[in-house]
Structures are given as C-alpha cells and as structure tokens.
C-alpha cells in the first residue's frame, strides 16, 4: 500500500470557470508532497476538495484505500492548517489546541496530557493561556499546526502556511516544519506558490498551472529536467531557445538556432533530423570568460556583449546580448581576486556550457509564460 492518498481525475468548475481540469496525483505515506503553482491556479480548491469543503464535479479522493470523496470534513482523518490560520479568537492557545479533543469528548486528564505534549512540541508551553491576538505570526502558525496535528490525521493539509511571515521567520519556520514532520511522521500536503519553499521542503512536487498538472517529480527532477516551458520558467530562471535538429548522434543532437550558434544538446527523447525542438538552459549553467575558452567537444560556446549586470551579494546576474537573444547568466563569487579583470557593461565575453545542460521541453514556447523574463526578446 504505497499510494496513500490518491486524487483520481478531479475536475471542478465554479460557474463557467473550470478551476481544476482532470487532476490525478498519488501521494505516498509519510512524505511531504507540494502543490506548486501561481496564484489562482486552483491549489486551494484542490486542497479544499481533500479536506471535504468542496465536492469535485468529477473524480475521486481515495485515502488509505477508502473513497472519501463524499465524506463530510468532520468525519475525515484529515486536518488543515489554514492560510490565515483561522485560530479561534475567543479561545486561549491551550483551548485552541484542545478543540479537536474536546469535540471528540475525551477525558479531561488525558486531554491535559495531550495538549501539554503538543505545546511542548511547538515550544509554546509558557504561552498556553494567551489569546491568539497576543501571539506573533510565527507563534500563531505553530498553534495552527499543533491544533491540526493533535487529532492524529492521516494527512495534514497546509495552505500556504508561511505566506504571511517575513523572509527570516519563513526560513526558520521551514526548518521547524521539517522537524515537526520528522517527529510526527504524518503525510503533509503542502500548498505554496513559492518555489524555494517547495524545493526545500518537499519529497515530491506537483507543478500546477491553470488547473492542470504540468509535472510531478522530486525537486531535483523538476529543477534540472523541466518537462514544459511553464515548469522551466516557474521554477527558477531559465533561457529558452527554439531550434531545428540538423544532426543526431545519440544521445546528443545538434540544433540550429536562428541568430545564435549551433547548439549541441543532450537528448534522451527520440527525435529525428528536421524536428523543431525547444530547449531550456538555466542561467547558472553558463561559464563566463573574457578569453575564448579552451573546451572539450561536448561544450558549446558563443561570444556576446554584456548588457546588464545585477549584483546580488552571493552571486551576480549578467544579461548577455547575442543578436536578438538576451541570455540570462549567473555567476557565483566563490573567490574574489583583486588582480582578476572585472566583467563590466559593454564587455565582449564568451559564454560556454556543456551539452548536458540543454533540456528539451515537451511543450511549445507558446504556452503562456507568466512568471519571469526570458531570453526571448
């Protein structure tokens, strides 16, 4: 019984607006599974279907082998951490956490022990008698998590639990969340629009766009081998190129990209001469050099002119103009050498990259790229 939570062909419309379109996913027991996608793509709706607040128009939700599609929320072994926490303002921290046990009618002494244990887990024992409005954002967050976890759900649903927190706190809570997950071993279903959050926390990610699943995979798979241009653009920055295959030499193929150079690209998917393909190259995969690099045969290189530089502390972004392409590249400052000649605006430099870093995308570039600027200008 590896597939613990199964979403099977879920569709949902509000009026004429189709919010979820035939979504099928499987979540393994004990993992952290993320729904990642831009605002309005239907993540919350999908989560609400899992929690039982919405009923799908078609499709099934199967938990631990049981079809729970029509089960009401209070009968599901699933608990939610809401986006705005939804703590009960009239109840203390203690009573908020105790709520689930109280409505289940558990003995008072047992309840005290249980709540005490969870207060300790979230390190808020000394705040037990405060009302939620006296807590900081991070503390509220932890109360919401404890309140959900105390019911020992099969799956914990988290709807953008960190969205309301500032960056520093978000990073700390991310570690806390991971620790809590290790401690309780419950399956987490985690909704976020923040790719770095999903990357750092998840065992598996489903990238969702306009109610459809674009790709499911581990964070590394999704980052390193995006299947669609949407995924490539949404997860991190990338450069897109469109080219014709002029030579195939498994597993590599040579592409002609108009206005660019001939590109040697890795390809495990069957393609033949004359095919039109789209590839993505991540900015950090480029090596920048002032002199023409001395390269082995699996490398590509091209000369361009630095048009824009953004210094970002631990790395710098350079946009390099090659004809009508503006290629985004990234360079880490692993060491700082005073005698090294700095690359500045207007410099002619060489870009080089290994053929393995060119990923072919399944979908055409015409799919809407909502998120970031790309090389296509």
């Amino acid at each position: 019984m590896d597939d613990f939570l199964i979403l099977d062909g879920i569709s949902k419309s509000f009026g004429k607006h189709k919010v979820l379109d035939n979504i099928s996913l499987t979540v393994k027991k004990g993992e952290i599974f993320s729904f990642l996608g831009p605002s309005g793509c239907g993540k919350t709706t999908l989560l609400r279907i899992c929690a039982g607040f919405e009923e799908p128009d078609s499709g099934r939700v199967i938990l631990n082998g049981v079809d729970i599609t029509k089960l009401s929320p209070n009968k599901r072994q699933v608990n939610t951490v809401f986006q705005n926490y939804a703590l009960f303002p009239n109840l203390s921290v203690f009573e908020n956490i105790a709520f689930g046990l109280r409505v289940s009618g558990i003995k008072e002494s047992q309840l005290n022990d249980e709540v005490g244990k969870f207060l300790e887990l979230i390190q808020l024992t000394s705040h037990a008698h405060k009302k939620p409005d006296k807590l900081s954002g991070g503390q509220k967050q932890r109360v919401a998590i404890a309140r959900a976890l105390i019911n020992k759900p099969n799956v914990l649903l988290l709807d953008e639990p960190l969205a309301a927190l500032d960056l520093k706190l978000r990073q700390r809570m991310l570690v806390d969340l991971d620790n809590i997950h290790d401690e309780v071993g419950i399956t987490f279903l985690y909704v976020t629009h923040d790719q770095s959050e999903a990357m750092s926390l998840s065992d598996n990610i489903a990238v969702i766009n306009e109610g459809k699943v674009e790709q499911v995979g581990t964070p590394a798979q999704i980052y390193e081998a995006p299947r669609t241009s949407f995924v490539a653009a949404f997860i991190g920055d990338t450069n897109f190129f469109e080219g014709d295959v002029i030579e195939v030499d498994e597993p590599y193929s040579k592409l002609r990209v108009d206005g660019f150079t001939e590109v040697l690209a890795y390809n495990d998917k069957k393609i033949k001469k004359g095919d039109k393909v789209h590839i993505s190259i991540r900015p950090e995969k480029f090596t920048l050099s002032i002199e023409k690099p001395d390269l082995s045969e699996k490398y590509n290189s091209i000369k361009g002119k630095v048009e824009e530089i953004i210094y970002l502390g631990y790395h710098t972004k350079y946009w390099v103009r090659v004809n009508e392409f503006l290629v985004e590249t990234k360079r880490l400052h692993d060491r700082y050498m005073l005698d090294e000649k700095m690359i500045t605006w207007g410099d002619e430099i060489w870009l080089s990259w290994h053929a393995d870093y060119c990923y072919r995308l399944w979908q055409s570039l015409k799919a809407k790229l909502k998120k970031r600027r790309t090389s296509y200008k």
Partner: protein
Amino acid sequence: MHNSKPRKNEFLLTLPSMGWLMIFFVIPTLLVIAMAFRNSDPYGGIGDQWTFNTIRDLRNPNYPSIIWRTLWLSVVSTIICIVTAIPASYFISRISKKFQDIILLLIIVPFWINFLIRIFAWKVFLHPEGLFKQILVTLHIAGPDTLLLYRPEAVLVVIVYSYLPFALLPIYAAAEKFDFHLMEAAYDLGANRFQAFLRVYIPGIKMGLLTAIIVVFIPALGSYVIPDIVGGPSSEMIGNKIAQRTFIDRNLPHASALSALLTFAVILPAAIALTRKFFKEKNSRSIGI
C-alpha cells in the same frame, strides 16, 4: 508619562456627549430618584418634605404580581427574540450580498409605519371577531369563546413582534463580520454542525448578542403602550402602573418610586456585571504582563 497627553485630548473629545448624557440622562434620573423620597400633595404636585412613606407605599399587595409579570414577560420575550435572531442572522449573513440588502430592507420597512398603528393592527388581528380568531375557530384550534386578546400571552407576542428587529440588527451586524472560515476550521477539527455553532459561532457574535439583549430587555421591561392596548387589566406591567399613578392618580412621587425601582432593576445587574469584568481584566493584566 508621554501617555497622559493624548488621554487628555481624548477626554476633551468626549466632553460634548458626556455633557449631553449628564444633562438629559443622569440629572433627570437622579431627580426621579429624589422625587421618590418626597411626599405627594393633594393637587398632583410634589410635596416639600423628605419622607420614606412613598417608598413604603410600594408595598402595595398588587405590586408583587405585576412586578413578577413584568419580569417574566421581559425575560421570555428577550429569550424568544434572541433565539429567533441567532439562526436568522446566520442565514442572512450567508446568502449573497444582494439578498442580504433586500432582507434588511424588509426588516426595516415596517418602521415607517407608526408604532401605535402597528400595535392597533395587532388588536384588530387578535380581536374576537378578527381574521386570525376566525381562522382558528374554523380550524377547530380555538373555541368560539377563547380570548386571544387581553391576556399576557398576547402582550408577549406583540413585544416579541416589536423588538425582534432590534435583536436581529445587532446580531446580524456581528454575524456579518464573523469569519466563517472559523466554522470550516471547527468542522475540520471534527466538530459537527451543532458543536461548531455552539463553540465557535455563538462566541464569535457575543458582542452582538449582548447588545441585542440590552436593546430588547430594557425597553420590554418598560413596556407601557403594548400591554395597554393588547393586554387587559390582567396583563398589566409596571409601565402601566407608572402611567396610571402619573396621569390618573396624579401622584408623581409614587410614580417616581416605581420608576426608580425599575431603573435599579436594570442598572444593578449591569453594574455588577461591569465591575466584575473590570476586576477580572485588572487581575489578568497584572498576572499577564
């Protein structure tokens, strides 16, 4: 230290309303209470001696039953109003904004008809030859001799009718601000509808409930027109007695004593509740910080 200045300014802002309350509420109330300690003069004026006799006269053997009736009518009508208004407000605040506005308008529309006329309409409605009575008789629910009018139950019905909107509006105002995500959170944590309603919704609209209780209970306690029109001599409330002492007996000190009694009946529980709350807050503050 630097807190004291804004405080002073705030106090200045409240001066006009404080002045208004002082002149038109506190002073008259004190005057009425003072009058209860005066004797009456035979011409309907106020005597010039301080005396406890007026207060002593309150031991009229008719009064206990009237006071009891006033209390139960007020309490029961308040309970009915609140219990009806809670689910109503819940449903009104859940429907679409457009229908909410329509329903609110429908609730308010009757207020454009004079209060007296509406009460008289009830009299017509419940009258022995009235429509409602006839229907009940045809349906064999009531006998032809059953009296619908001139009994405490009639007073109760009309008080509920008159004050229900006053209960509905503040409870609706609270319900409209209520975050219904909290109900979902309650369901999510395993509460059934009833538990969620009781443990989350009711505490969430607490302030609206308190306001509703006050705006129904206090006017109900002071009812005069309603028992006068639809109630008979057997359904009198304190308000009727006060009116009778004022207009017919022309014994203002006695009427004042009754009024003072009513005022204390209202103010005393409120004062106790407020002081208890004050001390509770003070305690929790000194512990909390």
